[in-house]
């Protein structure tokens, strides 16, 4: 396995370098917030959850051993924290949050289909995001975690298995069942039409 520069930063933090910890946050904090938002669909809460994850990391630094990739360790903390959060139940009844109206937070420009996206393309992207979020909220939690890690974080099945503490065949099954559910829920999009 290639040397993991993030693991080296974590070791430097264990040895007392707060700057190393800040570098880790600057590298992974925003991605962790985006990951958390897949579970709670609330940017403000997602930011709090990402902060929680990094506080846990800060407190438990002395327990980290660089035998695993840093991001695997981070995803494991974040997944567990997000699943604990959604188990509280309040998100199941929460109405969909329109990304455009949430705190005036802009969508990540890199996310749009090009920097010159038309208003129609932006509206279509937002509608698709809402349908995907709604589909995610209906998945059982293990399928949801596996699906988010596979589809949005791009992790290979082997790493998802490490994050979730399960086997690769189990991940294969979880990802497949979630993807079949997604195919059913997103049928109007697959047919080339936009749900309006």
């Amino acid at each position: 396995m290639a040397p993991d520069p993030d693991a080296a930063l974590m070791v430097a933090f264990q040895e007392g370098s707060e700057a190393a910890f800040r570098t880790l946050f600057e590298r992974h904090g925003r991605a962790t917030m985006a990951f958390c938002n897949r579970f709670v669909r609330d940017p403000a809460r997602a930011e709090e959850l990402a902060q929680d994850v990094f506080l846990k990391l800060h407190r438990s630094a002395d327990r980290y051993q660089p035998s695993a990739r840093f991001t695997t360790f981070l995803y494991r903390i974040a997944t567990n924290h997000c699943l604990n959060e959604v188990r509280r139940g309040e998100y199941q009844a929460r109405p969909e949050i329109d990304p455009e109206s949430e705190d005036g937070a802009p969508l990540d420009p890199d996310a749009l289909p090009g920097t010159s996206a038309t208003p129609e393309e932006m509206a279509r992207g937002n509608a698709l995001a809402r349908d995907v979020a709604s589909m995610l909220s209906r998945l059982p939690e293990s399928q949801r975690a596996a699906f988010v890690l596979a589809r949005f974080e791009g992790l290979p099945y082997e790493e998802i298995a490490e994050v979730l503490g399960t086997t690769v065949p189990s991940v294969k099954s979880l990802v497949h069942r979630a993807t079949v559910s997604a195919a059913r829920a997103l049928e109007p999009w697959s047919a080339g039409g936009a749900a309006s």
Partner: protein
Amino acid sequence: MIGRDRHVGDDLTALLDGALPDDRRAEVEAHLASCPECRSERDRIARALSSISLTPPPPAPRPGFEQRFYARLAREAPRHRSLLDRLAARPFRWLVPSTGLAALLVAGIWIRHADDRMDLEMARHLDLLESYVEVASLGVVETSEDVDVVSHLDELREGRP
């Protein structure tokens, strides 16, 4: 070899994800060549994956994202350090809960994956560990029954039965 009467199920998604070993991929592709039902299902999943790939990521954080975290870190990290210092000064107070936690972690690791790595397992149980540390600091955890209550604190906090 996959018979025509047996479909390939969850191998379809793994095939599209490039996650099948070469020999299995060859078997699944041979089956697809002769099974219109599985081809149709594969195409349906492929269309869904294409749609999902167009999903914009969640909103970017508001400006000051890093500064808000560093401010919270400055507020909360010293409090946690102080708690650990107090625990270190009274080691017998947390002997019971920490022994209980260690036993629980060892049992969990042994049951799930004998070769799983400790650091990842610890990541999974950070919430539980923090509950033990917080409650032990109050000096009210004395018996194994107390340890059991602490292990279910999250459920009490969430109002579960």
